[in-house]
């Protein structure tokens, strides 16, 4: 397990890649965008981008807005 921050919350996760994290959290990988330590992680690289202890991850989606 590694401790990371996801959307501002501390979490212990088993995932070792971005893709595994998105799946571990029960999210649809096609509908979220990922930022790791303030850098965008393109969807095509989710599977090969490793998670490191202390990473700050943002997972966002489109919501209603004006």
């Amino acid at each position, binding site marked *: 397990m590694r401790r990371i921050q996801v959307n501002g919350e501390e979490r212990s996760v088993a995932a070792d890649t971005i893709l595994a994290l998105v799946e571990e959290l029960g999210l649809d990988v096609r509908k979220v*965008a990922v930022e790791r330590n303030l850098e965008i992680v393109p969807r095509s690289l989710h599977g090969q981008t490793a998670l490191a202890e202390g990473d700050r991850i*943002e997972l966002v989606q489109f919501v209603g807005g004006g």
Partner: protein
Amino acid sequence: MTAPTDTWTVAGRTFNSRLIVGTGKYKTYQENADAAEAAGAEIVTVAVRRVNLSDPSQPMLVDYVKPDRFTFLPNTAGCFTGEDAVRTLRLAREAGGWDLVKLEVLSDTAHLYPDMIETLRALELLIKDGFQVMVYCTDDVVMAKRLEEAGAAAIMPAAAPIGSGLGIQNRVNIRLIIEQATVPVLVDAGVGTPSDATLAMELGCDAVLMNTAIAGAKDPILMASAMKHAVIAGRQGYLAGRMPRRLYASASSPMAGLI
């Protein structure tokens, strides 16, 4: 019907509908989707927010208002600096895969007018990053020109404060902004009624962007339809060219042949 050739183009994309609708403040995503259909919209604005980690099975906007049906125009609502705006829209570009965006850099939450100095700076940052930027702005004629010179894809002055429904407060400025612009001008924010939308189009706007006027109506679907017709009416009125204003009456029936 509007002639099928009466289209408008922003950042190389051509649209028939001149009504852009927001996707906020609806009771449900279904109502939202139904209203967007009734409005005949081709573009919808969307916001970018953190996913809900405690309930990942919650309904999502994209399951109802579908990206293959509407062009999504991601906004920067809630951003107060250029850096916030760039970060938000980079995520939007990753989520949606396109570069047409709506920039709004707000200042005070009481009136939600944009901070135009920061907006101009954010615009420059976004253009450097490859975005095509439609810019929410005040109805300041000089600032509108500055935005255009900086490379804005469209100028979008507020008619009145966001969500106020007060209608066009300064039609002289809106008209001057339209007259000087070589990119599309849209009234964004402040429309309350169909007649407000018609007036914006009569002034020569390329399109109108609204959210609360539809979402906040008692019957949002019916209002969406009303707005669709109002925008078409205003556009046709603009193209037709209004009659001259006169200070005195001018009889419509002939004086000759009176009994």
